[in-house]
């Protein structure tokens, strides 16, 4: 085996290992489901209180907000920081099915018997 082949193999192996866990079972051609979410006064428009996607899709929540917030997607346990002028994206492969609340964490929001900011519903294929 030539040196070049070994190097290629090592790089390929490294690339595999370096893959983030979330992307593990995601096929490259997975449909992407994108949601543009504008948070104003800790709320999103009523039509966006429930977001639906299908198992296997790639979900992208594109956030913008009028104040600095920490957003937490339950179940998938993803945290995203967003601030005015600093939009952020929460992206994940929809492998768990269920109805997952997205909540605002940090000061204030957590004290209440909190209603979720919105719910992400991942329906089975």
């Amino acid at each position, binding site marked *: 085996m030539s040196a070049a082949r070994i190097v290629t193999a090592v790089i390929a192996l490294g690339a595999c290992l370096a893959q983030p866990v979330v992307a593990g079972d995601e096929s490259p051609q997975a449909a992407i489901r994108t949601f543009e979410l504008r948070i104003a006064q800790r709320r999103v428009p009523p039509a966006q209180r*429930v977001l639906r996607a299908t*198992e296997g899709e790639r979900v992208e929540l594109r956030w913008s907000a009028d104040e600095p917030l*920490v957003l*937490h997607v*339950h*179940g998938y*346990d*993803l*945290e995203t920081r967003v601030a005015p002028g600093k939009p952020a994206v929460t992206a994940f492969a929809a*492998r*768990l*099915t*269920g*109805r*997952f*609340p997205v*909540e605002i*964490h940090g000061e204030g*929001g*957590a*004290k*209440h*018997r*909190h*209603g*979720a900011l919105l*719910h992400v*519903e*991942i*329906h*089975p294929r």
Partner: protein
Amino acid sequence: MSRFIRASCGAAALALLPAEAAAHAFGARYDLPLPLALWLAAAGLSVALSFVVFAVALRRGAGAPTPRLALLRLHPLALAALRAISVCVFFVVIAAGLFGTQDPFRNLAPAFVWIAWWIGFTYVSALVGDLWALLNPWKALYLWAEAIARQIRPAARFGLHWNLPAALGVWPATALLLAFGWIEIVWDGNAVPANIAWLALGYSLLTWTGMFLFGREAWLRSGEVFAVYFGMLAKLAPSEVRSGNGAAGEWNLRPPAAGLLDSRPVSASAAAFVIVMLAIVTFDGLRETPLWAVSDALWSAAATAGLLALPCLFALAILGACGLMAWLTRDDTRPASAGELARLFVPTLLPIALAYHVAHYLSYLLVAGQVVIPLASDPLGLGWDLFGTARYKIAADVVGARFAWFTSVVVIVLGHVLAMYLAHRLALERFAAPGTARRSQYPFAALMIAYTMLSLWILAQPIVETVE
């Protein structure tokens, strides 16, 4: 319990660093509402199979003695060992509550008590038998105290053995069940480990006082709410555990739910106990539906009122159906009152309640219940790793929405059919003519279908939290 989680999630979120966010998986329930097609299928099947029960069950010969098959007789030493383990777990949970970290997610007490024991043992009791009668740590500790007392003064009898009035029935346990339901569903502090430990200690004091005053078995029958609760569920089990006077336990196989075929009416207090059981499990689901969306400020008051009102509503509906049943069967050789019929037939609603309970909690138990695995190694949240499982990560994908949906539909339809069948069998034994027995079942079947539909309707609702 989901409330335990919901209430504590916020507090925990404040304390947790992002890196520890995985702990959140513990709490919430992520159930998707039952899709319309499955809802319709389950509802249709329930109604259709109700007619099958009408057609088939009434031809069966009633009154044959239930066959029993002895499986196992526990050696007294084995029983003592089981009880010793149970008592150890009891002390570990109390120690974790008192001396462990007060973060509900890193302490064994909340997860063990609310998920593993309160939900898990419900299923064990219904599917296996009354293991609580063998493992009950309060009973075990009292038995040991009795044994020690016998060693010291062989002649004297331990305890006062006052006469517990028979009219009291299981009313003390019914009141305690309502209180426990309130703690589970309404009380904000129910996930705080120290609160759980103090409640367990307070309940221990109450239980041992009751046993000392009225005798061990008398109190276990009427005041030890968990003995009554798990004992009631064990009537559904395909086996029965009988423990003699603490000396040995025997384990018999029998047809499932044979415990519910006793043709004698239960006491009014036992019927009330069953109604409170049904109401608590239904209310726990109902308060998560959009129907129950009340504001934060009113939540506790509204939930308390709902928890008290629902058993009364259920009792009224049952008495109404039984009143109609009494009227329909008034030409029987032994006409029955509405009250007597209610006491006879209320226990047959248990399979529907259990089925709804499984539909509501099974995926939660299977996912959130896994948290007991790491916490068993580090019960106090002090960084221990007793069994090498402290780093166990919850596998949130062991069950998905599809599993939850199909188990829900299957168990609810099965529970419904079993309930209908049991009620028919009891009616055949109670009423002289098969025609009268059949007539008696129209109102009760309507009640059961309504109860099954209510359970399915709740499952078809999205879980909502409070409105702003």
